[in-house]
C-alpha cells in the first residue's frame, strides 16, 4: 500500500512540477481549466435534460441510447492517445519505475489511480452525477445510479490503460509504430470530420442508425456500458439487475487491470518482441545537383518517411478541399472564377507557417555545420516545401478545369505560385526568429519540444502574414488582369511579369532572411537543440 501511494504521489508530483518548469504549459492549463469547467457544466446539463426528455418521450430507448453513447465515448477515450497524433505512451510509460521490486499489477494500478486525478477525468464527475440525477431524481436510489455511472467511468479508464499498453507494445517496433501513427492520425482526422459530414448529409442515416440501436439494444454487450446500465437498473429499484451489471462492470475493470499488469511485465521483459524492423532496401539516388539538391532530396525523403509529417501533408489537402467543396456548393466558382482565385491564394498563403527550420529537429546542428551559403539553405528548404505542395497545385488546376474556362488555369496557377513564393520567403523570417522544433515521431506533441512562442510571436506572425499578402497582391492582380479585362491574350505579357516580379520579391526576402540567419545562427541552433 505504501509503495502504491508513493508511486501515485510521484506521478502527481512530477506532473505538477512539469507546469512549474514550463510557463507555457502552466498558462495553457490555466486557460484549459475554465474551459473544462464550462464544458463539464454544459455536458452535464445536456445529459440531464437529454436523458429526462428521452425518458418522457421514449422510455424504452433510454438504455440502448445511453449504452451506445457511453460506448462511443469510451472507445474515443481509449483511442485518444492515438487520435491526438503521436503520443502513444504518454501516461503509460513506466520505464523509470519498472526496475523497482514492485509487482507489475501494482504498477498498473498506480498508473490507473493517478489517471483518476487527471483534470479531464475529474471534469467527468459532474456529468456522471447529472446522469444519475436524470435516472433516479433526488431519491434514495440516486446513490446506486451514481455508483453505476462511476463504475462505467472507471471501466473506461481501465480499458484506456490496457489499450495504452497495447499501443506501447506496438510502438516498440518502428514500422508498426509508423503504421499505427499514420492510421491514428487518419482516424482522428476522419472522426473530426464525421460530425460535419453527418450533419450536412447524414440526417436520414442517423435516424436509421438510432432506430436500429433501439430495436436491437446492440450495446448491451459493451462492457463500457455495463456500469451505466447497473445505475439505470438501480434507479429503477431492480436490485438483481443492478447487482449483476455492477459485478460485470467491476469484473471488467479488474480484468483490464490484470491484463495491463501482464502487458507491463511482458513489455518490459522484452517478451513482446515483434521482430526486427526490417531492411528498408532503399537504393540511394542523387537526383538534383549540388547542395541545394541534396537538401531538397533530404527533406522530401524525410517528410515522406516520417509518418506524422506524411499524414500532415495529406491532411493539409483537406483545407483546400473543404474550401473547394464550399465554393462548389455555393456556386461562387461559376461566376468568372473569383472563387477559384480565392482558392489559389488560400493554397499559396498556406505555405506561411511552414516552420522549415523546426522540421530539422536535431539535424539543425548538422545542416548548419556545412559550408553552404545560408541563402542556398533557405532556397532549398523553400523549394522542398513547395514541392511537397504539388498535390495542392494539382488540386487547384483540377478545380480550375471544373470551375472556370481552360484559359483561366494558367492565371490561377501563376497567382498561386506568386503567393506561394512570397509566403515562403516571408516565413523564413519567422522560422529563424521563432523556430518551433517539431517533436520526433512517437514523441508527445505536448512535450517540451513543441508549442507556441507566446503572444508576441503570434502578433509578429500576423504582421508578417499581412505583409506577405500585401507583397503578393500586385502580382496576383497582374496574373488575374487578363480575366478581369476579359482579354486572354494579355496573359502573354502579364503572367511572365507576375512571375518575374514575385521571383524578384522572393529573392529580396531570401537575401534579407539569409543575413538574419547568419547573424542568429548559433542562437537558433541553441534554441532548437535545447528544446529537443
Amino acid at each position: 500500500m505504501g509503495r502504491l501511494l508513493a508511486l501515485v504521489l510521484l506521478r502527481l508530483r512530477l506532473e505538477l512540477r512539469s507546469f512549474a518548469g514550463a510557463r507555457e504549459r502552466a498558462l495553457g492549463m490555466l486557460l484549459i481549466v475554465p474551459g473544462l469547467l464550462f464544458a463539464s457544466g454544459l455536458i452535464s446539463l445536456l445529459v440531464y435534460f437529454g436523458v429526462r426528455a428521452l425518458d418522457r418521450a421514449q422510455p424504452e430507448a433510454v438504455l440502448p441510447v445511453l449504452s451506445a453513447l457511453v460506448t462511443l465515448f469510451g472507445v474515443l477515450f481509449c483511442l485518444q492517445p492515438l487520435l491526438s497524433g503521436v503520443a502513444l505512451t504518454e501516461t503509460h510509460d513506466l520505464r523509470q519505475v519498472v526496475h523497482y521490486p514492485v509487482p507489475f499489477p501494482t504498477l498498473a494500478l498506480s498508473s490507473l489511480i493517478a489517471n483518476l486525478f487527471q483534470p479531464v477525468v475529474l471534469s467527468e464527475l459532474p456529468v456522471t452525477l447529472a446522469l444519475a440525477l436524470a435516472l433516479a431524481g433526488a431519491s434514495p436510489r440516486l446513490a446506486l445510479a451514481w455508483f453505476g455511472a462511476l463504475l462505467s467511468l472507471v471501466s473506461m479508464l481501465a480499458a484506456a490503460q490496457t489499450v495504452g499498453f497495447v499501443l506501447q507494445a506496438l510502438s516498440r517496433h518502428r514500422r508498426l509504430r509508423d503504421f499505427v501513427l499514420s492510421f491514428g492520425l487518419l482516424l482522428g482526422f476522419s472522426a473530426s470530420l464525421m460530425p460535419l459530414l453527418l450533419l450536412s448529409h447524414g440526417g436520414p442515416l442517423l435516424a436509421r442508425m438510432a432506430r436500429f440501436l433501439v430495436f436491437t439494444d446492440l450495446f448491451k454487450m459493451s462492457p463500457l456500458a455495463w456500469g451505466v446500465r447497473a445505475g439505470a437498473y438501480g434507479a429503477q429499484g431492480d436490485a438483481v439487475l443492478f447487482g449483476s451489471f455492477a459485478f460485470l462492470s467491476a469484473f471488467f475493470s479488474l480484468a483490464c487491470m490484470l491484463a495491463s499488469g501482464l502487458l507491463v511485465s511482458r513489455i518490459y521483459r522484452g517478451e513482446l518482441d515483434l521482430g526486427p524492423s526490417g531492411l528498408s532496401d532503399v537504393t540511394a539516388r542523387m537526383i538534383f545537383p549540388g547542395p541545394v539538391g541534396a537538401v531538397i532530396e533530404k527533406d522530401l525523403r524525410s517528410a515522406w518517411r516520417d509518418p506524422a509529417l506524411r499524414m500532415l501533408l495529406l491532411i493539409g489537402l483537406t483545407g483546400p478541399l473543404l474550401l473547394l467543396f464550399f465554393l462548389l456548393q455555393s456556386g461562387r466558382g461559376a461566376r468568372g472564377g473569383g472563387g477559384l482565385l480565392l482558392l489559389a491564394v488560400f493554397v499559396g498563403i498556406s505555405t506561411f507557417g511552414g516552420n522549415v527550420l523546426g522540421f530539422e529537429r536535431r539535424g539543425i546542428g548538422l545542416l548548419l555545420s556545412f559550408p553552404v551559403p545560408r541563402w542556398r539553405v533557405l532556397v532549398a528548404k523553400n523549394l522542398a516545401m513547395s514541392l511537397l505542395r504539388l498535390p495542392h497545385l494539382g488540386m487547384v488546376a483540377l478545380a480550375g478545369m471544373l470551375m472556370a474556362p481552360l484559359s483561366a488555369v494558367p492565371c490561377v496557377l501563376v497567382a498561386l505560385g506568386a503567393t506561394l513564393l512570397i509566403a515562403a520567403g516571408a516565413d523564413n523570417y519567422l522560422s529563424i526568429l521563432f523556430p518551433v522544433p517539431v517533436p520526433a515521431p512517437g514523441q508527445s506533441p505536448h512535450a517540451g519540444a513543441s508549442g507556441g512562442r507566446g503572444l508576441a510571436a503570434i502578433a509578429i506572425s500576423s504582421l508578417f502574414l499581412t505583409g506577405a499578402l500585401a507583397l503578393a497582391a500586385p502580382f496576383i492582380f497582374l496574373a488575374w488582369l487578363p480575366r478581369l479585362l476579359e482579354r486572354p491574350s494579355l496573359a502573354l505579357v502579364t503572367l511572365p511579369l507576375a512571375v518575374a516580379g514575385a521571383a524578384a520579391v522572393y529573392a529580396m526576402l531570401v537575401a534579407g532572411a539569409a543575413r538574419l540567419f547568419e547573424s542568429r545562427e548559433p542562437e537558433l541552433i541553441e534554441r532548437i537543440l535545447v528544446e529537443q
Partner: protein
Amino acid sequence: MTDAIVASGLVKRFREKAAVDGVSFRVARGRFFGFLGPNGAGKSTTMKMLTGLLRPTAGEVEIEGIRLSDDLLAVKGLIGSLPEELPLYERLTGEEYLHFAGRMYNLPRAEVRRRSDELLEFLSLQEDRRKLLVDYSQGMKKKAALAAALIHNPRVLFLDEPLNGIDPISGRIVTNLLKRLASKGVTMFFTSHVLDVVERLCDEVAVIDKGKLVAQGSLAEIRTQLVTTHDATLEDVFLKLVAADVERRDLSWLG
C-alpha cells in the same frame, strides 16, 4: 608552423553562470589533442564554440589561420565534427546520409559515391547501408556520423566521445583510422572520459575544470608541472588536477 586551432580567452556565460571562463590554448597542426574534464566542466561547450555552433560571450577562435568571426563557412569547410549528441537524419538510409553529407561539401557525385562506398566498407556498415538510420544501433549511428564527418577529408577533426557505444572491434578500427589521419597531418581535437584511450592516442592534453583550463601540455610536461611520479597514469594526473576527492568512507548500511 601555423597552429591548427587557436582559442583566445573563450568565455561562454549562460545567464550569470560562466560555463567556460577565459579558456585559451593552441593546437599545432597534425597534433592529437585530448581535451579532458569532469562532467559539466565545459568540454562540450568549448567544442561547440570551436566549431561555430555556439557564439562565445567573449574571445576568439581561429582554425587553420581563419578567424571564425571572419569567415565561418570557410572554417566549416575545413573541419569535421562528431558531437556527443549525434546529429542524424533518422529517416535517411546510411548510404543516403553519406551522399547528403558529401554533396553538402560540394563534392562531385562520382566522388561522393566512391568515398561513401569506401567509408561504409571501412566502418563495417556495408550490409546495413540501405537501412534507415532510425533502425541503426547506437554504435552504428556513431560510425555513420563519423563517416559523414570524414567524407570531405577535413583538416581538423573535432570528436566528442567518439568511442562511446562502439564495440571493441569497431573501436579499434576507429582508433587506427584516427591515428592514420593524424599521421597524415589532420589535427584531432578529442574529448573522452576513457582516460587510457586518451593516454594511448593523444600527443597533448588540456584539462578543463569548472570552465577554466587547469593544465595543458604533453603528459610528461603535466607530470613535471604537478610534481607527480614518472609512472603516474593520466587518471592519477587528472584526479589530482581537478582535485577530485574520491576517497570516501563506507556507507554505514552497506555490507
